[in-house]
């Protein structure tokens, strides 16, 4: 069966629109130095001045010498996951930065918090094996989750960015 004429037009339009979207998105991404996401150097995160506070904090944090942004904020379980998170964060943050439309103070989002927690365990899993053997840690701030996942940070909030208050 041959596709009908209108469908062809629609398909063409769709492709064109997607192209525009991708193109402009990419451009914004690049001009806002979203490409920073592709590097492991913390300095490239502060290309975006919005990240200055976290960068300064990181320099004062206990992990300054042992972990960079990506060690904590990107998944390390597998490459696909890593680039997926990298890409979606990069795009989202570039967009937020360009439109200057985001909540301040900036707060880590649940998905990224899960990534973070997994990284704590990546480095400290052995040490904490006994306390995680019977389930994740949990904080009752989110009643929709029986135990949400940001357990380490509840007590060790300062490891990444130094004293918070």
């Amino acid at each position, binding site marked *: 069966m041959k596709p009908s004429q209108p469908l062809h037009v629609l398909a063409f339009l769709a492709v064109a629109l997607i192209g525009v979207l991708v193109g402009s998105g990419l451009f914004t991404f690049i001009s806002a130095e979203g490409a920073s996401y592709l590097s492991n150097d913390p300095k490239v995160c502060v290309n975006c001045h919005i990240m200055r506070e976290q960068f300064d904090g990181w320099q004062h944090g206990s992990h300054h010498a042992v972990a960079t942004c990506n060690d904590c904020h990107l998944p390390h379980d*597998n*490459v696909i996951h890593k680039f997926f998170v990298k890409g979606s964060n990069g795009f989202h943050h570039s967009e937020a930065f360009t439109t200057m439309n985001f909540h301040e103070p900036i707060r880590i989002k649940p998905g990224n918090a899960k990534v973070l927690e997994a990284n704590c365990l990546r480095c400290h899993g052995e040490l904490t*094996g*006994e306390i995680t*053997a*019977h389930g994740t840690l949990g904080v*009752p*701030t989110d009643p929709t989750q029986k135990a949400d996942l940001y357990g380490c940070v509840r007590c060790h909030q300062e490891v990444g960015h130094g*004293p918070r208050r």
Partner: protein
Amino acid sequence: AAAIATILVLALYSSVMKRKTEALQTSFRLVNLDEKTVDPAQWGKNFPRQFDAYQRTNERYSTRYGGAGSEGMAKSRLEADPRLVTLFDGYAFAIDFNQRQGHAYMLQDQRTTKRVTQKPQTGSCLHCHASNTVAYREEGIKQGAPGTLDEPFDSPNARQQLMAGFESVCKMSYQDATKLVQHPVACLDCHDPRNMQLRVTKPGFIRGIAALAQSGDPTPHLPSIEKWRKGDRKEAYDANRDASRQELRSMVCGQCHVEYYCGPKTTLFFPWNKGLKVEQIESYYNEYKFPDGHRFFDWKHAKAGTEVLKAQHPEFETWSQGIHARSGVSCADCHMPYVREGAIKISDHQVRSPLMDISRSCQTCHRFPEAELKTRVEIIQDRTYLLMGAAENAIVGLIQDLDSARRAGVPEAKLQPAMELHRKAQWRLDYVNAENSMGFHAPQETARILAESIDYGRQGQLLVKGLKP
């Protein structure tokens, strides 16, 4: 392309497998633990670090307001503050009332207190002073409950055994009941032997928390209750099914560190049907009728003649009103902080005052020097202590006034309104005095309660002053 895809898929697969093996790896199991393993020494074979610390709850200490001192005997609260003898006149607490000490002492202290040796007490006392899961279930089976001890704790049969046994033990004399138990609170009371997950096992708590869930009182610090309320409510709230791990880290303590009734007139209960605030509990008691139809009271004051209430260690309730609870900080966070032992980090099972180990108990959350944190606690406690003294003075005054007025021939009916104020004032004072953090668990709320106690006490005096025989 196919090659790259294959590599990616393999990378993913291998990383997933690694996770799974890690999850299985726990500590070395030397002994098989089950619902019948009461003796902590058995558990200690699998978990020696926790067991060691658990045993160290027999170490004595004192802080400005906490601990029982390092002498052979626990510090007497009656000697420390003789006004208490007047305040508790006519009640067993006027005979013997000491500072709490470590968990290792709980059974022994109960067996030897003059409140037990000189006054008749029931088996309800054992609810919080011994490991009694097995004792209750055995007694329940004896009373005709179905099934055996082998059934898992969360099975319907086990629940029936537990509750039947509990009812039955509560009715025994203390002397008979105490023969059924041998250990202070033990691993089994807080842990599921299959996987070490936390759980609650005490009947008073199981019923009390379900009643609290039924009430409308907001519980922002216990979100699983608020979630249960939004559901169909067909099954009662069950902490072991509904609560998060973090909530259980407080609830296991809430099994005992709570206000309760455990006199002879009815089965032990936690008075949470209207909520966890001091007024809500008071109001529940005021509306509660004993089987004989009389309004609820704990004892009749020997001098004042008032039918008063006794408050006992409302730590769970007071914590619930504080900022820490609202912030998701549990009892275990402060009283059982993580400690590093060699290559492993575990919960400190030497449950005690956080001031004995401020760096672990407080400093992960509060980046202030130890001395500063200690000062913060002591400032809060000193303020509480001062107000508590003022409330005691007011009520001792009221008791004396009531006594003199009665001797001077003022008729009982005229004294009644002032006695009502005595009941209110004493309830509030005792709520704070019996609470064991000297105000720390909820500083402003505690001060508020004492302010009201003072007000009611002094108003009572004003009423009596106006009376003629």
